[in-house]
């Protein structure tokens, strides 16, 4: 469906700043939040305003707005939450992209072992 109200390519409109655009019908569903998704929120809260205050909500929003339009449109909400938290934690020097990738591979390996696959 073509945009009815404004053009998505307006200069100066961030890709997250979508009030007034047309994205089709709202699907009024509610699905359950997975445990890992809750964990992503909990870690963010523990590192931010509710806890260590090493990051904050505004930094997280900025990271959402800066991850690139492609990623922003491809990922779902909790994936974006995780991606923006990652960007912020790396920017603040808490760990590196390399350390993260390495650990992700390792965990994936551990999980495969557990499943015998």
């Amino acid at each position: 469906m073509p945009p009815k109200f404004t053009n998505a390519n307006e200069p100066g409109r961030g890709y997250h700043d979508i009030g007034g655009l047309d994205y089709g019908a709202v699907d009024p569903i509610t699905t359950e939040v997975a445990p890992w998704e809750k964990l992503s929120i909990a870690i963010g809260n523990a590192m931010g305003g509710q806890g260590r205050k090493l990051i904050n909500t505004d930094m997280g929003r900025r990271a959402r707005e800066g991850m690139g339009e492609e990623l922003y449109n491809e990922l779902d909400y909790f994936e974006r939450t995780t991606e923006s938290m990652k960007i912020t934690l790396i920017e603040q020097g808490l760990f590196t992209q390399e350390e993260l990738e390495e650990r992700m591979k390792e965990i994936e390996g551990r999980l495969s072992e557990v499943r015998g696959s």
Partner: protein
Amino acid sequence: MVDEDKKDKTDHGHVHDHDDMDSTAHALEHIHDHDRQFQPDIEDEPVKRYELMVYAIRELLLEKGYVTQDEIRKARETLDSWQPSRGAQIVARAWVDPGFKQRLLADGNEAMSDFGVDAGGAKLTVLENTDEVQNVVVCTLCSCYPRAVLGLPPDWYRSKAYRARVVVEPREVLKEFGTDIPDEVTVRVHDSLADLRYLVIPKRPKGTDDWSEEELAAIVTRDSMVGVVNPQVS
């Protein structure tokens, strides 16, 4: 089988504080947050990238001392305490107790503390639906939401379709929820983009005058506290 002597000297160099367990649980122990409620999907599909990322972030932050397991656990518990049933109780109380309702409208945080609600820095702002006004809440830029009283926002609230369209064609969007607002009622959309978090007191349905607070709370859905539906008496 894990060599129990090596249990405390892992490759990662950190110490576990858990009890005896077999290798399956040992592998999983690195992954979940020690609350024993969680099991990753033991199916054939690979774990998704972002799920792995969350586990990796957790481990790195713990190992580097930027957070403790206890802090994460507490954050999880706080998150779990944030449920729409809280909001429903507050609405039911507002319906039966005009004094409480006035306090709520004047200062949401103060009034909600009666229910032990800690909004964590957000300024809870309460809006009342009437015969003249239907309030509807959105965050067009992300998905801000009064989580302390409504829990995590549902898929539809987070969706681009809702965020983009409710601000420009609210009556059409409400119809997609099955809600028809008469022409003479003002639809007031609230774009919550700062520290204010909005909770809607929906209109109390007719025929509930002798209901208890508990019965009333049972018909107050989360969606009605955002303003896209109005509570019904079945």
